[in-house]
């Protein structure tokens, strides 16, 4: 049976409808972005006209880095809940009795998290930049607008979000408890953030080549991750909590 856009779309629709009606999810997706917006914005606005260029540069680096945590933490929490949460609710087994394949199910889940996550991330980033342009001193506004981290952030937002989602889904497919899944998921999302941080703070020289290589590597990993996560999404393990004991496993051939 070939991959079906209808089935993927069905998962996306269902997920988004559930997000809209879940106060916990709405609160989580609202609080994190606000925290990561308020802190750097306050720091940037606090810079005085007389500040040294190194101080200015450091504040701008920090200011442009913190919003990058939004596309990591928000999807990591949502993705961690995606499979184990359904399992705890008892809704997973009925879904697995339908023709939906593992890849379709996971792609639907991932897309439903990816779209709002990057939407919120770009929105917060845009708000941050807009505030600096209208409320910060001219020197700060110019520094933010011409910082090399600005275009890099625009590229890295979707890449980091996708990484966090696949890590979260992989952990969610193996975890037996939502809270543990969410904690592990946040930890698992950190490695690419750490790399990005090292570049943002000039520990690794943020040349175009290094940034492009990191972005390219993340892109490849994000694309392949869907199939890797599908391998750990095992119907039998999810339903019975035990590993299949036979060669005849239904997770092969995308079933």
């Amino acid at each position, binding site marked *: 049976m070939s991959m079906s856009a209808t*089935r993927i779309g*069905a998962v996306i629709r269902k997920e988004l409808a559930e997000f809209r009606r879940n106060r916990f999810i709405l609160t989580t997706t609202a609080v994190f972005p606000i925290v990561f917006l308020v802190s750097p914005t306050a720091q940037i606005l606090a810079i005085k006209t007389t500040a040294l260029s190194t101080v200015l540069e450091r504040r701008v680096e920090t200011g442009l880095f913190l919003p990058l945590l939004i596309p990591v933490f928000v999807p990591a929490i949502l993705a961690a809940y995606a499979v184990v949460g359904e399992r705890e*609710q008892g*809704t997973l*087994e*009925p*879904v697995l009795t339908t023709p939906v394949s593992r890849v379709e199910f996971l792609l639907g889940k991932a897309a439903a998290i990816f779209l709002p996550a990057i939407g919120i991330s770009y929105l917060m980033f845009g708000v941050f930049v807009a505030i600096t342009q209208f409320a910060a001193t001219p020197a700060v506004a110019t520094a933010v607008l011409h910082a090399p981290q600005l275009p890099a952030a625009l590229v890295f937002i979707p890449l980091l979000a996708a990484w966090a989602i696949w890590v979260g889904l992989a952990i969610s497919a193996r975890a037996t408890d939502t809270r543990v899944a969410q904690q592990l998921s946040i930890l698992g999302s950190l490695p690419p953030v750490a790399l990005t941080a090292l570049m943002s703070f000039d520990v690794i020289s943020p040349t175009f080549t290094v940034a492009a290589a990191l972005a390219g590597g993340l892109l490849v990993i994000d694309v392949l991750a869907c199939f890797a996560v599908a391998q750990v999404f095992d119907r*039998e393990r999810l339903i019975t909590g035990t590993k299949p004991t036979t060669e005849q496993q*239904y997770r092969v051939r995308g079933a």
Partner: protein
Amino acid sequence: MSGSSSIPTRPPAAAPPEAAAIEVSHLTKVFGSRTAVADVSFSVARGEVFGFLGPNGAGKTTTVRILGTLIAPTSGTAVVAGLPLGPASAAEIRQRISIMPEAPGLYRRLTVTENLDYFARLYGLRRREQRISEALTAVGLGDRAHDLTGSLSKGLRQRAALARSLLNDPAVMFLDEPTSGLDPVASHEVHVLIASLRDRGVTVFLTTHRLDEAERLCDRVAIMSTQLRTIGRPDELREALFSRSLAVATAAPLDQPDQVFTGLPSVQGWHTTSPTANGPANYVLTVTDPAQAAPAVTRSLVAAGADVLSIAEPQHTLEDVYLELVEDTEGRTR
């Protein structure tokens, strides 16, 4: 719920035809060191309502999950809805069947319609609104279509889950305890629905603990206890398991019961169940043919001057069969 208020009488159960809806051969499932299902073989005819009974932990749900392609067998083969069980056909099998687990598994923040619409899309159905409306009407939930499932009672959620399993017009329906938690009226309505499904040619694989339900609805039943203990029509099982007998009640104990009962046509033996000297007495006669034995026993009792209170053939229920088999199994495993 729509449909008539009475359950159609059960048609004569036919032997499974060549193209059975379900054909299971030597199915075994082992979880670690525990064998859940051991060497189980049976077949279910198209349009049959097949009861799958057994105590908790007997392997019923595991068997359903294997046949529903949710878990893989350790060994053995099966054909479900015309397709061999296996990785290559798993998705196609799931398209042709539906499974209603014991827990409804509904999204509580979504309405009944939204829940069904999700599954209709997963099945790739066309005319989704019509299918959803028909399914809800069939289970009597049309007026609750836009309620959040989290606000429904357990019985109504069970009905919504049943509506979900009707959506894809399945050739084979696996129903795991479909009347669990339902009140008598709602249970009866589910029974009517199952009977109507049989009339439409849908094969129903019914897992239940309610033996009265199985006896009333099922053409054949299988009793599991890791292994398949028995399979057949309820009346066949009763006959196979219990020797036929006549229960005789007299106003007072017979003086010489051996002389009264021995040598009568079809009577193979007798024993008393009320060994008191005074008051009414009860005797159980083992017979080969109750219809032939009853007149002869009556004549013999009258000739002996006995005051006969009743002569009847005891009726064993499916529950008697079940208890006999399950207690026998548990006794052997202790």
